[in-house]
């Protein structure tokens, strides 16, 4: 396989995956903003069942104390797994990846204690990057 053909294949692959997106939960996170989150997630009141009904099931991290976090994420562009693919990852890891993330903290009674909603560019930063 010559170099030009390989480069062409890589470019096509990068373009194909760049058009995608990935999400966790039922997708409501895409439109969720801070005021709406304040209405949905009331510390001391909102339960896990409420959150599951509203946002779907997030990724769960459980702690020894009985507390747990549910994480929801919406990422535009290429899925992060492509970064681990040889050669393709060299391109995809440098693409902009606007990411929206909601993390909800529940106490050991399954009631919301905290939540955080933020957006960031999840582009990989490599040594030497500006």
């Amino acid at each position, binding site marked *: 396989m010559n170099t030009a053909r390989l480069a062409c294949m890589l470019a096509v692959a990068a373009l194909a995956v760049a058009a995608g997106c990935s999400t966790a939960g039922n997708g409501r996170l895409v439109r969720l903003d801070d005021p709406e989150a304040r209405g949905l997630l009331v510390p001391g009141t909102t339960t896990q069942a409420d959150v599951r009904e509203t946002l779907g099931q997030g*990724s769960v*991290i459980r702690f*020894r104390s009985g*507390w747990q*976090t549910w*994480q929801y994420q919406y990422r535009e562009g290429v899925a992060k797994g492509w970064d681990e693919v040889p050669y393709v990852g060299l391109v995809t890891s440098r693409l902009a990846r606007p*990411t929206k993330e909601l993390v909800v903290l529940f106490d050991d009674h399954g009631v919301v*204690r*905290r939540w955080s909603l933020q957006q960031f560019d999840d582009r990989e*930063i490599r040594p030497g990057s500006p």
Partner: protein
Amino acid sequence: MGLSTQSCSTASRRAVMLALAAVPGVAALAAPGASEPVPQQVQVTAPLPGARDEKTLAQLLAARDAFERHHALAPDATLAFRLYARFDPQDLARLQLWLVDGPRRTPVPLDDRQRFALSADWTSALADRGAVLRTNLPDGAVAWHVDVRSPGMPDDLRRLGDLRLECEADTFHGNLQRGLRTPISAVLDASDELCLRDDAEAWFAERPIFGVALVDGPRRRTLPYRYLHGSNGTMAMAALFDWPYALRDRTYFLPLDDRSWPDGTNVVFDAMDDPQPGPSP
């Protein structure tokens, strides 16, 4: 081994005596008089202690050498070592530490955060003889961590240069934290670039945390959740690391690959039991 053999033979003798006493004829022969009550015997057994959690003095001296090589990251900081309970926080109440040099065992005092500093008596000659720092807790119960502190930093704040220096002194130098030693890590270690990877070192806050932010003057970055609680990885190999158990709600990683943050950057913690912040103005 001598203790083990002696204990086993003593236990065996007692077991034989008890077995003989249980045979009616033999019991009658052994008894001082048929009408006298047989004294009750109580046998107390305890398992021999298994391996204790320990590090070699050579590991700690290697961490000190790396600390001195990279001291510019935190010029005013001092070096200590800290022990964390990896499985059960209650272990800290009974934690003890000794320097063990052959048959000699010297207690090592710990401060109220289970920290200790290297003694001037702990020489490389002592390390070459195989001296170890040994706890009284079972192997695997303790997470060992390099502790670098610039003066004047409160509990809910760390200095990024201190943490970078902890990574340099620990990861693949002192080699104290549990983790996977992959070939690529060895290559990065050889080129002194290991602490430019954002998963090179796991840190533990003083309290359970819900957020970590980097703050340098007006510049602020709240870290994505993947830097907290080991949320970015699979639990399939969790047992190979220090953080997945009692320390998980205090665990954070840092974007060590982003060198745009100066060493004087503050690392600020948002505790789980802090109140929910109000709306941004």
